[in-house]
């Protein structure tokens, strides 16, 4: 049994590498796309705002699985002509859908910067673009970091859906193993452990960075004493309520 577990883990690790590659490329592209869409959605130009709104509404409404299957098989001959593989299709699908969610989160981050900051930029004679670049983005970026880390976790988990378009990521590899060994419980437990090993550190990092950013922006407790005081206050508020 231990021998089996060892060889299954080795095979599953091959799939995990593909999962990591898929998630990493999709994340980089999603960040670029969603940042652009978020900026478009707060721009003073109406057409850009409409386009950004449409993009977000459309791609937040389509399930990943439906888009993956319809893109891969529906546009099959076109994708083949363009030399786009199942991996490339999966990256495109994950980028489009996760990018829509991330764009909304980034928009929230940008809109959390108060209006006087824009006014201050304008009073200094800065254009909209310069105010965005030199005043707004430096303040909006720190809170976006934990958001992005959380989204990384979502992308890793969602990537399992593209196993249906022949991407050899960890879930697909697990299904192949199960078809040969008929040991679904053991193999899916191994898959869960490998996902945990990948996601838990990210989750911890996200929490640490979130706390750091909150302290830097003055919206979180700076010391242990402050943290304890806040907990006491919220507890007494609950009791009163």
């Amino acid at each position: 049994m231990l021998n089996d577990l060892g060889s299954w883990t080795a095979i599953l690790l091959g799939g995990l590498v593909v999962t990591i590659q898929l998630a990493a490329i999709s994340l980089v592209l999603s960040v670029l796309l969603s940042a652009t869409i978020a900026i478009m959605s707060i721009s003073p130009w109406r057409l850009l705002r409409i386009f950004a709104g449409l993009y977000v509404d459309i791609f937040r409404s389509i399930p990943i699985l439906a888009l993956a299957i319809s893109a891969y098989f529906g546009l099959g001959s076109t994708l083949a002509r363009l030399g786009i593989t199942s991996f490339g299709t999966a990256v495109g699908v994950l980028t489009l859908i996760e990018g829509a969610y991330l764009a909304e989160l980034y928009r929230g981050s940008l809109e959390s910067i108060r209006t006087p900051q824009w006014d201050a930029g304008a009073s200094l004679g800065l254009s909209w673009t310069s105010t965005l670049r030199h005043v707004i983005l430096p303040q909006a970026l720190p809170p976006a970091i934990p958001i992005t880390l959380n989204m990384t976790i979502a992308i890793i988990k969602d990537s399992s859906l593209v196993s249906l378009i022949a991407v050899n990521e960890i879930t697909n590899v697990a299904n192949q193993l199960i078809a040969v060994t008929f040991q679904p419980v053991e193999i899916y437990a191994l898959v869960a452990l490998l996902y945990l090993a990948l996601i838990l550190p990210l989750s911890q990092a996200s929490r640490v960075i979130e706390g750091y950013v909150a302290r830097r922006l003055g919206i979180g407790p700076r010391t242990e004493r402050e943290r304890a005081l806040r907990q006491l206050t919220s507890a007494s508020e609950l009791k009163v309520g």
Partner: protein
Amino acid sequence: MLTIATYGSAVPLITVGPGANQIGGLSGAWANAFAADYGLQVKLLQTTFSSSLLAVQQGKADIGAPVYYNPNRAKSYYYTYPVDIESLVVFTNKSFSYSGPSSLTGHKVATVTGYVWTPYFQKFFGSSLQLYSSATDAATALKNGQAEAYLDADINYFNAPLSLSPDIALHPVSANDFGIPGGIIANESYWIVSCSEKELANEMNAERDRLEANGKWQTFLGQTGAPAGTPIKSPPLQSPAEFC
């Protein structure tokens, strides 16, 4: 209730639909006759190939749509008498110059997860093999040009999306091609039941004997819905070695 785990249609072996819980083809006719004799209602659990195996193993379905035999699977299932015999072939476009397994090296090759041949293909092609969850998906990839060759049983030629397409060529596979032993190039398909339901397998076999004796099986062979010229090979009525 007779719950059957299926993974799609493949005439003449099996058809699913068009209505809910409707099953046809050779194996469907067998199951329907069995259900009628015992006053059972047929319920289909439509899923992927791998999941259909698990559904039977875990008792979510009473019987599983016909699969090929392998000794490993025989530790988890009883096999009924066979339904038909299918042979492994290589599907390519007519324009593809196929001269044997080595001519596929470096090309995009598709097949389906879970077949008895799949581990041999994985060894032969490595990570470049495209593994799909159903024959329809893999055949669609070939039609779309996303795969240059598709490895599967000959009966898939009679089913959508290939459907006797004049653009598609079938190439036979010989013993030791892709490292596959001669004994499993052609395979019988069997209904499967879980190891804890041997009696059900025996009753299915008894039904098959009755269908043979009263001549209904011959009628079913003529009513499979398969296109004219579809080769249907009816194998001898015997179950393979069991390891439950």
